[in-house]
């Protein structure tokens, strides 16, 4: 069935197809429609799940921790301040190796209060050990929810799905809606290897001495490394079932490109339109969308970018005191393997529009080398 739905509802439809047993969430703009539709789906019986309407995001995530520890699928969604309030629990879910799935609608962090998009909320969770996948369309969003559970349960790590506030969350697009009966063949019912069970009692999460803790962290990193392949395999398998795949990165017209623009989220679509326009003008330019952010797809990124003469990274985020965060990641992925120059561009913070004109300015600068710094170029800032 094809339907015109908003990005937030694409999240809900993805969850509806996954046999999720416990939902727990707290409202925050721009995430609200995700949980409103899920509440309706639970109330109507379309989803057979318990929906715990908690008093905070900290409780939303700890309720997911409890549910997942019981051995069932658990899901929550949030944004910005909510994600930040969950921070402590995000770490806990990783250490406990619980395959929870979370949708974060990227929203700028206050003050000043802002409900508009940028990536600082999710990117400041970079090192907690959650997988992060950045989505670009409503179809991809729905499909990625389904993929996320499969990935999470395979590597025993939680997965965060990320989409832009408003530009995606509130934008209506045609989505081929997934049905639970079809998804079941791809994502069978979840059987947890370890769980809270009175017939097989264990203590989970108790004191770990220096003689164990280190190894447990090593195992998390190994699982993350394994996830690099698992994300790819799950995507291929998804394509076999449903005819759609997204890759871990998405190169666009990169063959023979001198300059490659690196993007993520909805900026990727806008960028492709600019690439087409510039290619028509005979400029050898392409773009690379980063879909998988953690684990970082180092090889795929190297494969594409090492062939360029220049790389321009567009960041809708900033690590204060350093650079754009995707910029840092790209630099570290290429370090020591190629000397292709990499330029960083910060734009679109707090929901400032990243229009084709903005991207064209970045592309022109990258092509001409004029007026640009190596590490950090502010695009559109009024100072």
């Amino acid at each position, binding site marked *: 069935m094809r339907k015109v739905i908003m990005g937030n509802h694409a999240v809900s439809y993805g969850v509806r197809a996954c046999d999720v*047993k*416990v939902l*727990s969430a707290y409202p925050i703009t721009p995430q609200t429609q995700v949980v409103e539709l899920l509440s309706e789906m639970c109330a109507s019986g379309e989803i057979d*799940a*318990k929906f*715990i*309407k*908690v*008093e*905070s995001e*900290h*409780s*939303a995530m*700890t*309720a*997911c*921790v*409890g*549910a*997942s*520890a*019981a*051995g*069932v699928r*658990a899901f929550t969604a949030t944004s910005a301040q909510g994600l930040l309030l969950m921070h*402590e*629990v995000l770490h*806990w879910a990783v250490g406990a190796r619980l395959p929870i799935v979370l949708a974060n609608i990227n929203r700028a962090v206050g003050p000043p209060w802002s409900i508009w998009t940028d990536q600082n909320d999710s990117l400041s969770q970079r090192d907690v050990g959650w997988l992060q996948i950045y989505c670009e369309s409503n179809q991809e969003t729905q499909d990625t929810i389904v993929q996320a559970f499969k990935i999470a349960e395979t590597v025993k790590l939680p997965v965060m799905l990320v989409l832009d506030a408003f530009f995606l969350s509130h934008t209506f697009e045609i989505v081929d809606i997934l049905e639970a009966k079809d998804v079941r063949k791809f994502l069978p019912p979840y059987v947890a290897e370890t*769980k*809270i*069970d*009175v017939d*097989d*009692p*264990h*203590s*989970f*999460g*108790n*004191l*770990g*001495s220096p003689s*164990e803790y280190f190894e447990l962290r090593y195992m998390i990193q190994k699982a993350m490394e394994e996830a690099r392949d698992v994300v790819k395999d799950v995507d291929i398998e998804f394509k076999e079932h449903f005819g759609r795949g997204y890759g871990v990165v998405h190169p666009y017209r990169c063959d023979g490109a001198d300059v490659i623009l690196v993007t993520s989220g909805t900026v990727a679509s806008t960028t492709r339109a600019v690439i087409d326009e510039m290619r028509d003008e005979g400029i050898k330019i392409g773009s690379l969308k980063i879909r998988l952010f953690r684990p970082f797809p180092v090889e795929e990124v190297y494969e594409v970018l090492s062939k360029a003469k220049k790389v321009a990274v567009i960041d809708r985020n900033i690590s204060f005191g350093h650079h754009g965060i995707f910029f840092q990641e790209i630099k570290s992925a290429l370090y020591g393997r190629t000397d292709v120059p990499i330029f960083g561009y910060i734009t679109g913070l707090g929901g400032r529009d990243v229009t084709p004109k903005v991207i064209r300015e970045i592309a022109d600068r990258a092509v001409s080398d004029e007026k640009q710094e190596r590490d950090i170029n502010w695009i559109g800032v009024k100072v």
Partner: protein
Amino acid sequence: MRPAKIPTEELMTSGHLACQGCGATQAMRFALKAMGPKTALVIPACCWSVIDGPFPHTSLKVPICHTLFEAAASTASGLKAGLEMRGDTETVVMAWAGDGGTFDIGIQALSGAAERNEDIMYCCYDNEAYMNTGIQRSSATPVGAWTTTTPVAHYKKRPKKKIIDIMAAHSIPYIATASVAYPQDLIEKFRRAREIKGTRFMHVLAPCPTGWKLAPELSVAMARLAVTSRVFPLIEVTDNGSTWKVWKDFEQTPVADYMKPQGRFRHLTDKEIDSIEEEVDRNWQIMLSRERLSADLPGLER
């Protein structure tokens, strides 16, 4: 108080990491005797996250989901929902938290769970300070007490937070206080709570010899004196917070007898102890008047 048989079954083993005379450990042992093996515990950061024992050991024969300090009630809510959805409707989920995890940092999650009337038990073992981190004051620390953050020169000036009143205001089906000095009563109450649906809140006074500056062998005696001095009344609140029942069938003892053996109160003058006794008496009278009120009020569910 009717004597009840104490089950011989032990769900708590030796080899745990508690201090000598630890009331929290006695509370767990008796509570599990009442609860039985079909119980899953949720333990936030507190002494009990250590008492349980280091990985791969555990001193309990029931499953434990350790969790974050402020998250006992929310984790328990999720665990209960998850177990039910897995088809296990029998297991009782019991959050087991200290006073800090209950009165302070965990009160938001607890209030949320109680308001939703989650089908969980929540037991606060109350040793009246943050013992695990080295005896810092909590909002459960009684007025007059020394802790490492309320030194003698500036001992705790504010009274203990009235957690039972707070929980009663949530209209939950069952609330009870219990003491390790009265194990029969404790076991009966946990058994009663076990059979009720909805949020059940248990408050157990658990003397801490280390933090109270008390000889370990006086731990149970102190728990008893807390009850008989009426500092810690044994009560039950049922009918969604409206019916109060106070246990009065004991010989009253002076508050000074309770406070004097404890080093944490050593700096208090007799006059100060007298004024604490006045406060204890006022609280006792308030509780009795609530009991009378709930007995006299027409139309209350019995």
